[in-house]
């Protein structure tokens, strides 16, 4: 999978490394700004409040 990606990238090695770094940064940014904030309330790790409903309200 990554081998395929490496071969598909254009240019010399240095350019490919640069492109991969930019790509990795973009992926991490999307994870931190979109995916993780979306996933977090759906995970049970971080709840601090008390509640009566069947699912405890959040907190941490």
């Amino acid at each position: 999978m990554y081998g395929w990606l490496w071969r598909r990238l254009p240019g010399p090695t240095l350019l490919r490394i640069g492109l991969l770094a930019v790509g990795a940064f973009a992926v991490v940014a999307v994870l931190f700004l979109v995916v993780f904030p979306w996933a977090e309330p759906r995970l049970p790790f971080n709840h601090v409040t008390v509640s009566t409903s069947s699912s405890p309200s959040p907190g941490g």
Partner: protein
Amino acid sequence: MGCEGYRVSGRRRVPGYGGEVTFPTASPAPRRQRLAFVVGVVGEILITLGVVVLLFLGYQIWWTDVVSNRLAGQLAGQLTTEWSDGRGGAPGFGPNGLPAELTVAPTDNTAFGLVYIPKLRSKVWGLPLVQGDTLTQLAEGMAHYPGTAMPGQVGNFAMAGHRMTHGARLSNVDHLVAGDYVVVRTKDWWYVYVLDRHTIVSPYDWWVVDPVPGKPGAKPTQAIMTMTTCNPRWQAIERWVWWGHLKNKLPARGGLQPAELAG
């Protein structure tokens, strides 16, 4: 992605294994090579997932603190500006000439107070008190449970804070002892609470924020407070609960501050 790697004019590409490799097409090897290719891709996916989990850990432990502290700082700044502009308090004055107190909760997401815990000074010092008890408000500071009393009022003033991540304001809740102070400032008043006792309950023990905890339906006669956070520290299977009572209050005017803030 997985389609690459099948026959390319008698040669086979095995991604992840050093680029293009030539194999004899008629030998028994292709089956094994196909298996190696599939195992390789699955392995790479698993490694990627592992890295994503590690990134999520970094997000939780580091990034949420960064975001949360920035939010809390902005909110506290806005609130202080509003207060100095004369906004954010209860309208009018009481019969004794003192400013009226906030008795009705504002709409959700409104910051209406600042919380100070001298014992936890590094984290809970001028922390916004925000109406609502969802993750949104918890990320901004201390979250005021809807339906509970306002600070200083008869009944149970209840708030929650994060023990870990998103600022982790109450990370050291276990350092507090009975007799420690929790100070809440609204625009016109300072309220000083003294902690009395703590307990650990289930997340479903809603009674802890009742007007009189442990006595369902009882009419409150005292101004008390409840503060909840999660327990154990890196988990959320229980809730750590502190109860306290109002010791005194004083009008916030002319830079007057309660002595308890000192420690």
